[in-house]
């Protein structure tokens, strides 16, 4: 077990650490979906494109936050490591969905990510001291919740259809 992973298992983490994981989480997701676009059949490309776009917005949000002096000021503070962090951190590693994954596979992966993100941000919003970072986590928690709900609906609309 690496030092870094040991640190992750302890129940405290610095804001910087959390912040960087989150930034990475969103960036990887955006990159993953973007890379997937040309590899899926055109008939499901709309889905991946929509997912990539969502993630891009979040990446931009983190970029903006990192330039915020108020955020910079709390970077070294220690906060409770979220329970969901393990699952969340795992998502930084992108899966292999195979060649030409179908819409259901993409959706299931996206749903899993959204679920982890939602839990992570919800906990972070609770434990981060008040300030622009807490606001950002709250915003993200809210966003990911909506996002997950929307994806679930899309999932059921696509998968549970045609059967009458």
């Amino acid at each position, binding site marked *: 077990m690496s030092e870094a992973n040991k640190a992750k298992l302890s129940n405290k983490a610095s804001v910087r650490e959390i912040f960087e994981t989150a930034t990475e989480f969103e960036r990887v997701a955006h990159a993953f979906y973007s890379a997937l676009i040309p590899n899926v*059949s055109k*008939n499901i490309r709309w889905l991946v494109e929509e997912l990539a776009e969502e993630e891009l917005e979040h990446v931009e949000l983190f970029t903006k936050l990192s330039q915020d002096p108020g955020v910079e000021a709390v970077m070294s503070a220690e906060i409770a490591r979220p329970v969901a962090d393990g699952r969340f951190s795992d998502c930084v590693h992108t899966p292999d969905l195979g060649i030409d994954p179908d819409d259901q596979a993409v959706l299931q992966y996206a749903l899993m990510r959204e679920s982890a993100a939602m839990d992570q941000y919800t906990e972070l919003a609770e434990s981060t001291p008040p300030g622009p970072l807490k606001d950002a986590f709250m915003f993200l928690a809210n966003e990911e919740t909506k996002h997950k709900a929307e994806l679930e609906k899309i999932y*059921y609309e696509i998968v*549970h259809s045609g*059967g*009458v």
Partner: protein
Amino acid sequence: MSLREVLTPFTAWKHVLDAPVTIPDPIGREAAERYRGFHQNDMETCIGCGTCEAICQNGAIDMVPVEGQVTEKGDSGLRPMIDYGRCCWCALCVDVCMTGSLTMSNEYTWVDTDPDAFRFIPGLEEPWKDKEAGYRREGGRELSGTKRSHMGELAPALRGDNFSEICAGFTREEAILEADRCVECGLCVATCPAHMSIPDYIAAVRDQDYDRGLQLLYETNPFSEVCGRICTHKCETSCAALHEGDPIAIRWLKRHIIDNVPMERRLELVGGAKPANGHRVAIVGAGPGGLTAAYDLAREGCAVTVFEALAAPGGMMRYGIPEYRLPYDALDRDVAVIQAMGVEIRCNMRVGRDIALDDLKRDHDAVILAIGLQMGRGTRIPGSEGPGVEKAVDLLRRITAGEDVPVPERVVVIGGGNVAFDIARSMARLQKATHGTVGVTLTALEDRAHFLADAEELIEGAEEGVEIIDKRGPQEVMRDASGAVTGLRSWAVTSIFDDQGRFAPAYDQADERVHEGAMVIEAIGQMADVSLLGAELTEALDWNRGRIAIDAGFRTSEPWLFAVGDAVKGPDVINAVADGHRVAQSVMERVSLQEGIS
């Protein structure tokens, strides 16, 4: 002549001091409770069916558009306007009203200097609008029947172990009784995707003119054998009769017509196709959409070839719907009429395997894709990969094809739509025939009131021994150490739709159950197999959220290619039929245009 007779009349004078019996001021005298006074109409309940107008012997009623009343499914948006210059207050309009919206207040005085005021629309702002007293018909709708006519069905005991057709169809007497109930308002026509002339063909049943009935059916639908049996009959959900009774059995009446016209007579009545016009059209898929388009185009004189991947035409009508709902010979008769128009159906010709789409493109003026939704969706829950988990559509197809399918003593079906019931009831029959008992559990996310399947599926399925468990969300297919399926683990569904009516199930994880079974069948959804398009065409085509993008005329972004049916649009046979007509029209426009150019 006595003095008494001269004097007695003067006794009348004793009344001279009596109080007058007349009412000093009769204005405002309240009429009796059930007095037939000025009309009232509950605008929200009224559906604008015009039955009041039809029965009015004075011709006092006009159906008129009213601001705020929207024309929509089951409501014409029209409302009665009554000309009090003609009305005789007989209240037949109230007695016949299909929804009970039209009533009468006991108000009877109305003074106005404008004669046109007496041509009025009840239910707007008249002073007696909300008055409680007044004529209400006693005992409900008496003037047109409210009970659906009986139709013979195989008893559950007689059908549980076989695939014999359940519904016997109406006898003539039953059909006439049922047709008699129709008030010919025509609200159903807008709801029917093919806009069939429903009131007209029902009238033909009433008149016992089956020839006329058949011709009316064929004007809009070459699949009356099929639709007369398994149509989703949304028309019946906008029937005026349903507001205070059973809706008219439109579907069964359609079947009754077709039941009463022998095959040779059908061909005579339908007549032949126009002379060949030299155009060639290829259709991929012999389902209802493709064959309807084929029928129309062939009648116009096109040379139509239908390429069907499976061994027989019909698509889901044959390979999806079980025989007990739609016998194959009924489907064959519909297909035979289509073939009689000169349509060539080439079976066992899977495009992309046995023939290339490019070849079709090259040899024809237009190609219509009518491929349907042949692939079943899976839940992809843990354990769902591997033997023992089947897709409903695959199993149904294999049953139709006569293949042996495994028939365990206990089976779990996931899904609450008609397909789920089709497989559940088919498996129940096979179990009954094989093991003598039925062991099918059907679990669905929805609660009973919101099952996508038709109500009679729930009733008949239960009669046949299918255990229906609603509000269960599948979580895992359970397997034993050897990997054999042992059951399905599910959570209770606490809510299924969000406030916008979109699917968003929520679960109670504490309420967990395992449904025992050696086979789990997934019947949750279907998708189109678009692989036949090939990468190049897939890339070239425009798409719309997973489906081939089409315009109102079912044209794809490629001018030679059209697409129709479940794969691009509607969810059922009648929609496919309706769209088949439209795509045929677009194709005709295209080929005529080519003609103009060449």
